[in-house]
C-alpha cells in the first residue's frame, strides 16, 4: 500500500469521525492501527496513526535539542541568503529588549527569544524554531513606534508558541510522502532536508492563512498582556497594504493585509483594543535612527 493510499484510508476514517463533532484522536488512531493490522501491515498502521495524530494537532512536539538544532540551521541559512545581521549592537540590543519584554507574556518559558534586524530592504519578519526571530531593516524602517515593533515580534512569537512551522512540515511530510523531513538530529541528509523544507515554507510558500490569522490574534493578545498597545500590528499592516504593489517579502508569503487588518479590527473591537498600552514613538525613533 503506498503513501497516498495510507493517506486516503486515514482521511476516510477522519471524515467519518469528524461528522460526530468531537474528534477523539487516540480512539481514532487505535482504530487505524487495528484496521491496518487486520490488513496485515502493522508498520503502515503505525505510520498512518502517527500521521493522523499530527493532522489533528496532537503531534508530539520536537524535543528541545532537536528544535534548537533545526532553528539554528534555519537561522544560518536565512542569514546567509536573506541578509546578514546588521552590525549595530545598540539597535540589536534595543530590539532584543522589546522582544524579551513581549516574551514575558508568552507561555513557552523554556525558550529564550533572540531577535535580529537583518540587512534587507524587503518588508519581512520570520521566526525559526528554538526562539530565533528576524525582522528586516526595511520593515523596521516602515515602523513608526515601539508598539508596532512589539506587534511584529509578538506575531512571530505566536508562530513559535503554536509551533506552526513544525505543524506545517509534518502535514506536508504526510501528504507529499516525504519520509525524513522532520528528523532533525538524525543523519546529515535528514537534517539538511528538514532545514531546506522549513526554509521553503517560511520564505517561498508561506504558512496556511489560518496560521497567520491565528498568529495575528495571539500576537495582539501577547503584546497587550505585555503592556504594549495591541493596535501596533494592525497599524503596521495597514501601512504595508499601501506598499503591496511595490515590494515582496512578507507580502508574498502572508495573506492580503486588508483581510488581516479586518480580522484584527474585529478582535480589537471586541475589547482588546481598549486595554491601552505603551506606544513609545520617541524611544523607537531614537533607537532606530541609524537605519532611517
Amino acid at each position: 500500500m503506498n503513501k497516498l493510499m495510507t493517506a486516503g484510508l486515514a482521511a476516510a476514517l477522519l471524515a467519518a469521525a469528524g461528522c460526530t463533532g468531537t474528534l477523539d484522536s487516540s480512539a481514532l488512531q487505535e482504530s487505524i492501527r487495528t484496521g491496518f493490522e487486520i490488513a496485515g501491515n502493522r508498520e503502515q498502521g503505525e505510520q498512518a496513526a502517527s500521521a493522523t495524530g499530527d493532522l489533528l494537532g496532537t503531534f508530539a512536539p520536537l524535543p528541545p535539542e532537536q528544535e534548537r538544532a533545526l532553528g539554528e540551521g534555519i537561522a544560518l541559512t536565512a542569514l546567509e541568503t536573506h541578509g546578514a545581521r546588521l552590525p549595530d549592537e545598540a539597535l540589536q540590543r534595543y530590539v532584543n529588549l522589546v522582544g524579551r519584554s513581549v516574551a514575558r507574556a508568552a507561555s513557552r518559558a523554556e525558550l529564550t527569544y533572540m531577535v535580529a534586524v537583518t540587512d534587507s530592504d524587503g518588508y519581512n519578519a520570520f521566526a525559526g524554531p528554538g526562539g530565533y526571530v528576524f525582522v528586516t531593516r526595511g520593515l523596521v524602517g516602515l515602523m513608526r513606534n515601539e508598539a508596532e515593533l512589539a506587534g511584529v515580534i509578538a506575531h512571530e512569537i505566536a508562530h513559535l508558541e503554536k509551533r506552526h512551522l513544525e505543524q506545517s512540515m509534518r502535514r506536508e511530510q504526510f501528504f507529499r510522502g516525504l519520509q525524513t523531513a522532520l528528523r532533525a538530529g538524525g543523519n546529515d541528509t535528514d537534517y539538511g532536508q528538514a532545514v531546506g523544507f522549513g526554509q521553503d515554507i517560511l520564505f517561498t510558500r508561506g504558512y496556511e492563512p489560518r496560521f497567520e490569522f491565528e498568529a495575528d490574534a495571539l500576537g495582539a493578545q501577547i503584546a497587550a498582556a505585555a503592556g504594549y498597545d495591541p493596535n501596533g500590528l494592525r497599524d503596521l499592516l495597514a501601512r504595508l497594504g499601501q506598499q503591496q504593489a511595490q515590494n515582496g517579502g512578507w507580502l508574498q508569503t502572508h495573506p492580503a493585509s486588508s483581510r488581516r487588518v479586518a480580522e484584527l479590527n474585529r478582535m480589537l473591537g471586541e475589547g482588546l483594543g481598549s486595554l491601552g498600552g505603551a506606544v513609545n514613538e520617541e524611544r523607537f525613533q531614537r533607537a532606530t535612527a541609524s537605519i532611517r
Partner: protein
Amino acid sequence: MNRTIPIVAATLLAVAGASAQGTQRTATAGETVFVSSREAVLRQTSSPSSPVVATLGQGAALTVREVQGLRYLVETGTGQRGYIVRLNTSATRPRTTTDGMGGLLRDDRGAAEQRTSGSIRGLRPEAIKMREDGEVGSATVDDVTAMQDLAASITDAEIDAFNAEGGVVAP
C-alpha cells in the same frame, strides 16, 4: 485510490482545526483557571494603574470570583484576591518544561548566573557541519553566535529597567 481523498480530508481537518483554535471560553464564577503566561500581575482593582497585589508565576491556580470585562476577579490558593487580565489565563494548566533548558533566564535565577549561562550558546553539531560543508560562511556563523551571546547577556533587571523607562506595564 484518488488523490482527492487526502485533499478533502485536509480541508475537513483545516475546518476542524480552525474551530478548535477559536476564541477561548470565558470562565464563570467558581471555576479554576491557570496563569498561562510566564508571569502575570494581580491588581487591587480592575484598573491597569491600580497597585499590584501579587506577581504570579506560570501555572498558578486561581478561582474565578467574578468576570469584569477583560478581567477576572480571582482568588489564589493563599487567599489573595485581585484582578487579572483574562488573556493571561487558560482553562487548563499549561505545560512547563523542566528539563534541559527549562527554567533558564527566569526570575528565580540571578543576573550573574544568567550571564554565564551556556544553555543557549554555541551551535549544535548539525549546524557546525553546515559550516564545515561550506553551506554557510563563517560570518553567518558569527551572526548566529552574536544573537545567542546578546540574548544571554540580557538580564531580568535590564528588562525591568527598560520597561520602567518606557512605561511598559502589564495591564
